């Protein structure tokens, strides 16, 4: 019944899920302490700066699609979009969300409309202007975003999601126009590009935790603790594997192949 070679992975997945659920339940009683994520803490300040300068905020989720393995990064980006839109609506700052995949448009429109409604400014939301479909082609999308940067000069640029070659085009263009930038991606090859150019960076797992972090919901925050315990298990497994391999045993490798 079980697929050979995937049993260990299934066992680990179940174990991590159980740990996360336990941590979420425990967090209802006592909120765990965890390190601050500078980039997410800086969001209100970034938007405040845009309000002072009277310039918009640009937000994009990169080449995120809902029907590929990049969907999780897109969902993470959308979680933060809701939070960013809410602060922008409160401060009267126009947020421009640029879209690569048309399938994201109805979701983003609804999500942003709700954020405006929550702060009682539903009438200020202009979907045609604030949710802009660019193109489903990578470099057409990239140049369209660069065009917005040059013409509308956003004071802040927030990029959370899967990014490819366009990462450096965006980061450099927005740097040149003086935008303060927050970037986050789980794509390892693009992290260095963002790291050298952007003011704030979310590295891999931080983008997945971002939605929980900004929500301040104790149950969601508890899941981050569960995620960290998973990391401790991974480190222990690595050490055990190292010792066993040095001792000439392939026991752990065989278990992992189950």
């Amino acid at each position, binding site marked *: *019944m*079980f*697929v050979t070679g*995937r*049993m260990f*992975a299934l066992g680990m*997945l179940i174990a*991590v*899920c159980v740990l*996360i*659920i336990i941590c979420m339940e425990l967090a209802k009683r006592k909120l765990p302490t965890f390190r601050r994520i500078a980039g997410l803490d800086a969001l209100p300040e970034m938007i405040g700066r845009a309000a002072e300068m009277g310039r918009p905020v640009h937000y994009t989720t990169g080449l995120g699609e809902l*029907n590929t393995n990049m969907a*999780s990064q897109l*969902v993470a980006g*959308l979680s933060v979009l*809701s*939070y960013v839109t*809410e602060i922008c609506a409160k401060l009267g700052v126009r947020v421009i969300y640029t879209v690569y995949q*048309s*399938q994201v*448009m*109805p*979701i983003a429109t*609804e*999500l942003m409309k*709700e*954020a405006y409604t929550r702060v009682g400014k539903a009438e200020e939301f202009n979907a*045609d*202007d604030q949710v*802009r*479909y660019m193109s*489903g082609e*990578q*470099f*057409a999308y*990239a140049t369209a975003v660069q*065009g917005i940067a040059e*013409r509308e000069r956003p004071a802040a640029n927030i990029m959370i999601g899967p990014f490819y*070659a366009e990462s*450096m*085009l965006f980061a450099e263009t927005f*740097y040149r126009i003086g935008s303060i930038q927050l970037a986050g991606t*789980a794509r390892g090859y693009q*992290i260095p*590009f963002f790291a*050298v*150019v952007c003011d704030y960076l979310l590295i*891999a*797992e*931080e*983008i*997945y935790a971002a939605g929980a972090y900004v*929500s301040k919901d104790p*149950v969601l925050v508890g*899941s981050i603790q*569960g*995620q960290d315990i*998973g*990391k401790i298990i*991974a480190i222990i497994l690595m050490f055990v594997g190292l010792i066993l391999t040095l001792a000439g045993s392939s026991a752990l490798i065989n278990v992992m192949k189950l």
Partner: protein
Amino acid sequence: MSIVMKKSVPILLVFITSLIFLAEYFVFPELKDVVTLLQNWGIILTAFTLGFGAVNMFMFHGKQVSLRAKGQWPYSLWLLMILVLFTLVGVIMGATSTSYSWLYNSSYFALSATVYSSLGFYMTSGIYRALRAKNAESALLLIVGVIVLARNAPALAAQFPILVSMDSWLSSVPTTSAQRGIMIGAALGAIALGLRTMIGRETGFLGRLTEGEKGG
């Protein structure tokens, strides 16, 4: 729209779909046909949403043209003309026709390659600012950057073969370990996000729900 249709039904759909995908991958490979069917539905839905994109473009750029928006309207007009041209050629002659392929290859393909090539200049300007020894970390980045750059310059690599082995060690040991650490963290993060989404706690993609809407 009631809260059930707007929130509960999507969360239930996400839960059931996720379970089917997980079951097919780990336990019941015979569910492959169901998974393929669901993926095809996704592709069809995506194709439908292209209409939203086209309408959005016409609305936004049409407005820019009619208002003669400064610095924007000529680009908007050009975009709308190209959009109509591609649509007409695609619909009348077919998206696989020679005319459509010629149009695509001689316009978008060339422009796309040009933009991609320009990336080199953006990288140079970014790295120029980054490679400055302002503190210990940036000094380390500078040293490593210089080694990798020198190794990729054929004349220097030929003169100093040690650069090749240094670059090889940097790529296969510290860089690979860091990348694996990031990958493990990202995988655990994705699991946590997936679980929160499946059980309806992570609802950022549906808008931020109240406790009542989440069901406590």
